């Protein structure tokens, strides 16, 4: 009997040779090489008076629905909302970085406020620099707000530092399930001018419902944030998916309706 617990469950040294410590220290230094607590899709679209975005309140631990009141949309500065998907600890790290950025900018008291493009620029450089150290922050992030000229802004940045802007953006499964629904309304930047906040909200609610139907790591409880061009940020929390229809489940094995 080997009384050293650290040796239990290891290949026997006398048979396989002693443990090669090179395995442990091989490759570049790694911190978050695998995400643990994760958030699923964030979806967003522009409308005639701003940008609307939504993310559900689930923090998954693999396939376990670990936290059910996770807030993934945060207000940064006065008129910007940032939505995170991916690793929750990296999200909280970025939150703290953004908070420090805003606080330190505020010391100046020069009347300048960070707008969405500035936050976006900052985040995209942080994300790219971390990927270049091969130690990424495991997130896909949406930044919504308004540009300096007062027009709506919506941008995407992810763990590779990839950035792009579009009138409709969604991360994760949202890119497959929500984007087709949102693009029916707004395909071009011009189209956003003919879409009201109510229409946009309806499309977002519908998309969140579709995501809840089909994304196994999603929740029917979500937050909707609206940034309007007058600089107002509105959070609608604890929204529930409405008018769901699960009748189809009766015919499908695996939903618990059949015993055998």
């Amino acid at each position, binding site marked *: 009997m080997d009384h050293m617990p650290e040796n239990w469950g290891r290949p026997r040294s006398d048979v396989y040779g002693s443990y090669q*410590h090179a395995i442990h220290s091989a490759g570049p230094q790694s911190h978050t090489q695998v995400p643990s607590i994760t958030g699923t899709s964030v979806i967003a679209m522009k409308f005639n008076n701003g940008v609307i975005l939504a993310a559900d309140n689930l923090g998954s631990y693999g396939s376990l629905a670990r936290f059910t009141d996770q807030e993934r949309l945060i207000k940064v500065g006065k008129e910007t909302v940032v939505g995170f998907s991916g690793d929750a600890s990296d999200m909280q790290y970025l939150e703290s970085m953004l908070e420090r950025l805003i606080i330190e900018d505020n010391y100046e008291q020069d009347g300048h406020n960070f707008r969405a493009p500035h936050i976006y620029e900052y985040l995209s450089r942080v994300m790219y620099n971390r*990927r270049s150290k091969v130690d990424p922050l495991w997130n896909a992030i949406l930044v919504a707000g308004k540009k300096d000229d007062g027009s709506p802004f919506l941008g995407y940045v992810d763990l590779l530092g990839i950035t792009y802007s*579009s009138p409709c953006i969604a991360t994760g499964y949202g890119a497959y399930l929500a984007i087709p629904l949102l693009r029916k309304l707004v395909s071009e930047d011009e189209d956003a001018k003919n879409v009201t906040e109510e229409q946009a909200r309806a499309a977002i609610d519908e998309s969140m419902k579709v995501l809840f139907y089909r994304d196994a790591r999603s929740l029917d409880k979500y937050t909707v944030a609206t940034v309007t061009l007058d600089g107002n940020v509105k959070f609608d929390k604890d929204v529930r998916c409405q008018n769901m229809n699960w009748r189809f489940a009766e015919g499908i094995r695996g939903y618990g309706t059949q015993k055998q």
Partner: protein
Amino acid sequence: MNTMFAEQFNEPATNHSTAAPIEHRFNPYSDNGGTILAISGADYAVLAGDTRHISGYSINSRFQPRVHTLPGEKPLIVSANGFSADGETLVRRLAQRVEWYSYNHNKPLSAKSCARLIQTMLYGKRMFPYYVATILAGLDENGRGAVYSFDPVGSYEREQCRAGGAAASLIMPFLDNQVNLKNQVDPATGEPKIATDLSLEDTVKLVKDAFSSATERHIQVGDYLEIKIVTKDGVSVEYFPLKRD
């Protein structure tokens, strides 16, 4: 690799290859599609690129311009196509260097020098390259159109025309044929045709044709074509709709 670890730690060789490189989950590169194309003429250069941005089979954005104008009163246009995060970063760092050059030396950076600067920037990341096909377009010291093209680690060349990115292999032979008149003979003499400078109008037509064809056969190309034209009067831009499927 195998023997290196074995010797270093003086371990007996084992029958399972523990010393093989540990699999690494994170891949710092991806492909964001798109294609670029540059043609130079007697007193102009054009650099065109489609505006589609993709990941896998998803269209991220239908309008994400990839052709950039560098700062300065004698502007150069550049595009770094491939992995967009690297491309954007390269262009931003280049733009900063070009701007500071003009402040430090009180003159604009020439196309020739800018090309050499790009080479050093690309080669500077030789061991962790920018995953991009880069094309620089502008006017040379004599006011003639100039196009420089680069591989990801900085090999470069001045050329009459060049296609880069996803559909480069579709467009490049077409350019050989229609710009440099390759494989064409004069029916009267039977001698090979000699390429002459194209008019700007013909060049723009050729660019549109090349992209319409590439859009037809390459899924990563489409949405809009952005054509930037450098002349002695500065940079002008033209947009042309491509198929969106």
